[in-house]
C-alpha cells in the first residue's frame, strides 16, 4: 500500500517547509511539495501550510499569500473537506483566507517570542489531533511575532461552545491571545490552524525538548490510511 500523501506548500518566504516535509516522512507519510504559483494540488490527501514569513509578512501576515494561485484550488477543496493544517504563518494565511475565523495580531509584548511552550490539547476531534488524549499537556516550540489570536465576542463564544479551540497555552500566555488560544479548527474540523510548531518537536536530537509534536503527523496519517 502506498504511503498517504501530504502536500507541503511553499510560498515565497515560507521557511518551515523542509521541517514540515521531514515531519511527514518521520510519521511514515509521503511529503509532496506544492508551489504557490501552481494550480494543481497533485491529488494529495491532506495539505500542510508551514510557517515562515511569506511575502516578508508585508502588508499583513498572510495577506498576499492568501491570493496565490494554489490557494484558488485549496480554498474550495478545504471547504469540501480536505484536511488542512496551518501552523504559524500557515494559520495566519488560513485566517486571511477566511477558512478559519478571527485574526492574528502583533504579540502583546511587541517582541518576537521563541520558546518551548507548554500547551493543552483541547480537542482531539480533528484529523490532526486524534492521536492525543483529550486534555493532554505537551511542550512544543512557538516562534512568532504576530500570534495574538483575536475574534469578536460572538465568534469566541461559539468557538468555545462548539469545542473548536484545539490547543491552549498553559503557564504564561506568550502573546496576549484571547482565552489563551493557541489553535482552532473550523466547524467541520478538517481545517486546523495553530501558532505552535509541532514539526520542531518530532526528534530527541533536534528542535525543542521531546517529541510531543509528532502526534499531529501520526494523527493525519492514520486517518488517511484508514480512510
Amino acid at each position, binding site marked *: 500500500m502506498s504511503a498517504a500523501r501530504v502536500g507541503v506548500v511553499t510560498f515565497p518566504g515560507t521557511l518551515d517547509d523542509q521541517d514540515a516535509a521531514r515531519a511527514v516522512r518521520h510519521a511514515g507519510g509521503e511529503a509532496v511539495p506544492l508551489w504557490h504559483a501552481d494550480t494543481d494540488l497533485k491529488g494529495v490527501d491532506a495539505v500542510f501550510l508551514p510557517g515562515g514569513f511569506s*511575502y*516578508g509578512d*508585508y*502588508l499583513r501576515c498572510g495577506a*498576499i499569500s492568501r*491570493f496565490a494561485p494554489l490557494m484558488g484550488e485549496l480554498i474550495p477543496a478545504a471547504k469540501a473537506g480536505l484536511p488542512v493544517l496551518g501552523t504559524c504563518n500557515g494559520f495566519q494565511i488560513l485566517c486571511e483566507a477566511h477558512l478559519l475565523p478571527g485574526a492574528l495580531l502583533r504579540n502583546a509584548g511587541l517582541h518576537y517570542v521563541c520558546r518551548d511552550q507548554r500547551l493543552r490539547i483541547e480537542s482531539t476531534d480533528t484529523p490532526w489531533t486524534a492521536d492525543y488524549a483529550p486534555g493532554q499537556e505537551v511542550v512544543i516550540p512557538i516562534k512568532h511575532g504576530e500570534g495574538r489570536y483575536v475574534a469578536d465576542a460572538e465568534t469566541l463564544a461559539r468557538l468555545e461552545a462548539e469545542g473548536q479551540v484545539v490547543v491552549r497555552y498553559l503557564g504564561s500566555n506568550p502573546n496576549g491571545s484571547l482565552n489563551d488560544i493557541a489553535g482552532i479548527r473550523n466547524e467541520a474540523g478538517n481545517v486546523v490552524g495553530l501558532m505552535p510548531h509541532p514539526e520542531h518537536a518530532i526528534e530527541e536530537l533536534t528542535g525543542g525538548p521531546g517529541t510531543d509534536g509528532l502526534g499531529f503527523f501520526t494523527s493525519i496519517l492514520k486517518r488517511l490510511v484508514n480512510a
Partner: protein
Amino acid sequence: MARVIVDVMLKPEILDPQGQAIARALPRLGFSGVSGVRQGKRFEVELDGPADEAALADVRKMAETLLANTVIEDYTVRVEG
C-alpha cells in the same frame, strides 16, 4: 478637544520593501496601471484642549522624538476637520 493626524512615511530615498512587495502583488490580482506603492503609518492624536499653535508644536515634537524615526522617516502633522 481636537484630533491631530500625524502621517509617517519613509523618506523618498529610503527603500520600502513592504510597498514594493504590495506593488508586485497587485498585477497578479488584476489591478493594472499602478506604478508604485509606498506604505506608511497614520497616528490619530486626541488632544484634551484645542489644536492651537502650542499644542501643534507639542505634537510635532512628539512626532520628531517618538512617532517617527527621523533617521529614515518623514512626518506631517495636520488638524483633522
